[in-house]
């Protein structure tokens, strides 16, 4: 039985080395397996959540779908891996997912130390505060001594501590694991204030029994540029993801929507739109995808503005204003390099 044991343990080690991901050439790997494996949040209204049919929807999910549309011409060729904050980078590094689209803040450390590449910003966010209106507080500066409910996040606790320290104020932090508990704690009056990224504050607010009884304070205490992430050292794949995002922004800028894209494609004389839709110019060659890559994105996912309004904006229950996320031409900072 010594030999049996040896064989068994050998088999164990062998099994451990079976499923090998293709580290260097994600694009090829994605093309050959026929879908994009996309890491998303386990549930964040407006960004990635499941509907009652079990489909993933949200702004982060739309980035995944856009990439699939660019690569395959079919936005549905995505498989989702719900990830917690702790797992997300390991999952990407280990090759479990091809891209991470999970409200991840672009920071220096992450961009340099973790072997990651940020492909762009699909939502400019910042940490803010929500209070009960009955408290009569109008500014975060009045919050000295408040009890604050925090949804545990990677930077939330630190930003909060920094803010109160720099303003010479004290606070009491109750850190919950998930948004559901955070909202309930806030609603039950455990704390005076709820802090989280602003986008989430709106999502959390609609979970209150009386959303109108709570208000978001004007202060934004941090910069949280959220965007999709890929592995370091894979330029081709980085560019596909990056330009999928840019295509959506460019499309909004040019006024091309999922509804009029076919019409535009047939009739447009605008060279910019022609280049966008792959009718002229470099098309998809540089990205190693089909020439109609941007067309597929716009047709199936929509432009950035559409995606925004549908998931988090006025067409959604969240009703977040465009704010920073408006196009540069409309007072925001969403800006994409030209497709040319």
């Amino acid at each position, binding site marked *: *039985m*010594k030999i049996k*044991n*040896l064989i068994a*343990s050998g088999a164990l*080690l062998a099994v451990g080395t079976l499923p090998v991901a293709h580290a260097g050439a994600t694009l090829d790997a994605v093309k050959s397996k026929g879908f994009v494996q996309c890491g998303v949040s386990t549930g964040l209204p407006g960004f990635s959540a499941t509907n009652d049919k079990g489909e993933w929807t949200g702004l982060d999910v739309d980035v995944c779908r856009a990439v699939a549309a660019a690569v395959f011409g079919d936005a549905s060729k995505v498989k989702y891996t719900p990830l917690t*904050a*702790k797992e997300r*980078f*390991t999952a990407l*590094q280990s090759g479990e997912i091809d891209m991470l689209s999970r409200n991840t803040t672009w920071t220096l450390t992450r961009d*340099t*130390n*973790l*072997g990651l590449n940020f492909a762009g910003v699909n939502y400019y966010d910042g940490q803010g505060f929500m209070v009960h209106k009955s*408290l009569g507080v109008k500014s975060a500066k009045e*919050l*000295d*001594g*408040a*009890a604050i*409910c925090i949804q*545990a*996040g*990677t930077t939330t*606790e*630190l930003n*909060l*501590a*920094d803010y*109160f*320290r720099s303003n010479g104020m004290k*606070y*009491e*932090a*109750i*850190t*919950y*694991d*998930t948004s559901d*508990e955070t909202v*309930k*704690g806030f609603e*039950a*009056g*455990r704390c*005076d204030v709820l802090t989280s990224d602003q986008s989430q504050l709106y999502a959390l607010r609609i979970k209150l029994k009386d959303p109108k009884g709570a208000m978001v304070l004007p202060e934004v205490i941090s910069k949280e540029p959220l965007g999709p992430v890929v592995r370091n050292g894979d330029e081709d794949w980085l560019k596909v993801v990056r330009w999928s995002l840019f295509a959506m922004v460019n499309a909004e800028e040019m006024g091309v929507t999922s509804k009029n894209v076919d019409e535009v494609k047939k009739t447009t004389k605008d060279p910019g739109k022609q280049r966008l839709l792959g009718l002229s110019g470099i098309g998809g060659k540089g990205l190693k995808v089909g020439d109609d890559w941007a067309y597929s994105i716009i047709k199936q996912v929509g432009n950035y503005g559409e995606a925004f309004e549908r998931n988090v904006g006025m067409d959604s229950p969240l009703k977040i204003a465009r704010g920073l996320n408006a196009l540069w031409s409309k007072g925001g900072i969403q800006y994409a390099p030209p497709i040319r």
Partner: protein
Amino acid sequence: MSHKSNDEAPAAPSFWRDPRKRQWIFQILVLALVGLLFAYIFHNTLYNLEKRGISTGFDFLNHEAGFNILMSLIPYDETYTYGRTFLVGLLNTLLVSAIGIVFATLIGFLVGVARLSSNWIISRLANLYIEVFRNLPLLLQILFWYFAILPLLPHPRQSIQIGELFLNKRGLYLPKPIFEPGFGWVLAALGLAIVASILIARWAHRRQEATGQPFPVFWTSLGLIVLLPWLAYGLAGFPLNWDLPELRGFNFRGGIGVIPELFALALALSIYTAAYIAEIVRSGIQSVSHGQTEAAYALGLKPGQTLRLVIIPQAMRVIIPQLTSQYLNLTKNSSLAPAIGYPDLVAVFAGTTLNQTGQAVEIIGMTMGVYLVISLTISAFMNWYNKRMALVER
């Protein structure tokens, strides 16, 4: 086992057929295999950590944490280090476990005895308690108690006030004693009273053995322990001040605050574990045969004496080992604290600190290590206890 050699040792079997040698070879192989596995994991981990640019080592423990913790038994604010957060979390874990253990034991014994009550309603209710709380996931129960209790409490501005005691959604606020120099006398008096009580108890025990005369040890000791320190307190000129909780701005400041998270978690842990303890107590008591009770009654012992002198000493031998493992479970289960925001070890160290530093291997390793040490300590105690008890039984 030992086989003393005769004139001639029996012919040694050939190498492969000597069971002892075969066993050793087998063991060495197993050991080598385990060693290989560890080496393999170690190698991979090092390689991966380096490749992915994840820092290693325990330097991070000296870095400034930069975040606040809701509750701490030792001085802490965001300028302290991660090492300190570890300690804060550990102490909070120990605190909630200790409270949970005390109350789980109390409730558990009560329900266990109620389960055996001759009163049908009481025994049914106890059974219902056991069946309901034992068969629901603990996580659900923790959430339930927390969110069931919170809405019942008033906002800080409408706190329930009893003397200088305040109760509201932020917790229970008690006056905090501030000791002034003369307070040492009070402590000394307390110590003296305790020592005196012990001596009296010994003396009373000897006297009862010698003459059969009982002595009211409990009341005498109680009197001593209460009166002596008071006397000293008065003589030293009342050297004690109170830091009273006071509503300032949003919340109470000063005093001692007991947060509702601690309360809810300890409550849920106690109620859940008590259901198991109740069953242990019931089976422990039932394991003592009815004949023991009858014999004690027949000798004229009263029901209370029977319980104390005959039933419980025997039942405890069945109960204690299982009880210990329930205590262990309770301690491990306190790791569900993050769900309701109680800052235990898992919440502040394996949670926030892990999120900040990303050093999963070290942090998870340290966290597991802590629980392991607790559990090994308790099982060492249990082995010692079992051995002691086994001697008595034989």
